[in-house]
């Protein structure tokens, strides 16, 4: 979580710039606000020794009540649903994969978007697919594959015409711009992968 917050903070301007091109330019600020709040919540939860499932549920709730805009409810709901699907103190790759799938499903239900609509789903869905395909690998490996898939999905949004969210107002003019939500999704999967990968000796 801390890594995700840092990644978002580091890329705030980039996300907002992407959003300015095809939306209203606040995606970076929205997420920065949300993840600042999450950082506070998370620290408390870690201190309290909360388990991963309830942890994600709480964090999702914090996002919902601090981000605003479209991304808040979508990411928040995804995390809450993922958290509800996780039980116990630790989790293997298959369990985490199933939780991510539950989060993705909830996100799609709420937003009504499918792959190809030029939204965060275009990064989220392939990431979950890659993660689950690596169910027999360790968590770090699965997460690395997911991050790569998310980035590929993110880049694939550029030629698409948006059908959901603010970018859809542009019609044809949304083509040629990378979706900000897909970008933030990819950033978060990359942050997850890096936080799970043992860092090389310093």
């Amino acid at each position, binding site marked *: 979580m801390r890594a995700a917050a840092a990644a978002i903070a580091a890329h705030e301007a980039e996300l907002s710039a992407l959003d300015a091109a095809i939306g*209203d*330019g606040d995606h970076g600020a929205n997420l920065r*606000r949300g993840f600042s709040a999450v950082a506070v919540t998370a620290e408390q939860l870690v201190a309290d020794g909360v388990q991963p499932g309830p942890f994600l549920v709480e964090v999702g709730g914090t996002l919902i*009540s*601090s981000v605003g805009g479209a991304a808040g*409810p979508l990411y928040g709901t995804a995390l809450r649903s993922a958290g509800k699907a996780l039980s116990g103190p630790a989790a293997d790759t298959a369990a985490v994969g199933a939780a991510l799938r539950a989060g993705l499903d909830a996100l799609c239900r709420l937003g009504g978007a499918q792959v190809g609509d030029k939204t965060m789903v275009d990064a989220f869905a392939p990431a979950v697919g890659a993660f689950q395909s690596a169910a027999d690998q360790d968590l770090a490996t699965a997460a690395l594959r997911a991050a790569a898939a998310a980035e590929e999905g993110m880049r694939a949004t550029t030629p698409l015409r948006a059908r959901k969210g603010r970018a859809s*107002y542009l019609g044809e003019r949304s083509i040629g711009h990378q979706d900000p939500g897909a970008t933030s999704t990819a950033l978060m999967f990359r942050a997850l992968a890096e936080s799970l990968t043992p860092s090389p000796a310093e």
Partner: protein
Amino acid sequence: MKKFLDDADTAVADALAGLAFARPDLKVDQELRIVTRAGAVRPGKVGLVSGGGSGHEPLHSGYVGTGMLDAACAGEIFSSPTPDRILAATKAVSAGAGVVHIVKNYTGDNLNFDMAAELARDEGLEVEKVLVDDDVAVRDSTWTAGRRGTGATVIVEKAAGARAEEGGDLKAVADIGRRVNAASRSFAVALGACTTPAAGRPGFELAEDEIEIGVGIHGEPGRARGPMRPARALVADMLDAVLEELPASDDPVIALVSGLGATPLLELYVVYRHVAEELDRRGVRIARNLVGNYVTSLDMAGASITLCRADAELLRLWDAPVDTPALRWG
């Protein structure tokens, strides 16, 4: 960027603090960014809540008061308020007769208001949603998130507010709001972009002679860019777009000409002159009008035109007394 602000992050909070000082007839919850009338909601009256991203002032806080809204939720600039806050506002104005949410049609607003409504229902409250989607710049198709909500919001809030004030029940109040929305269409043109405090620079760049045709109130690009032209020609095109999708009817219209934030009243009256003359030419009678800054987009230079077909009942509700910072009569 030069703005009368202390900090981009506190802009909304600071403005609400100013509103609280200026208007003792309103109550401002600084923590939750909720503006309500100072007094309690009359028992049995339907509560009216609206809200959305900030930066469209006087929308929505300027429409809280007798005959209009009971509560406005102020999100961050151009970002929907969050469900917990909308829920708090909903509970604050619930007086046993249910609450109407007036929501402009944007993905963020829809998601956040819907979640709040869900939570409110979990707590046993009745909530009806009135969706405002009047902006004809966006084609309403499976390819889009649907038409955006803009100027009609003021008329929806006014009429539904009057209906609630006179004792209409939840269904009646929501129905009036939906009827106004169905009878309303809008179109906006920008001569220059707005600058959000967070971004610090204009959301788009227009050439010296270029305008954004069909711009959204968050600076969303419109149908096209085009060359600047005389007011008469611009207004004729805007009316073409509006009338093409306005329900045909013999009813007269309520006409709203709103500046987007940086356009002087002098120009808005020039626009209204052409609205009046063009509509007369096309056989549309204007029964009521508003000319000024009613739904804005920070410091965007530009104007929007909203027309709403109004039958006798709607005109009666429009004329009913209202006492808010931005609308006051009767």
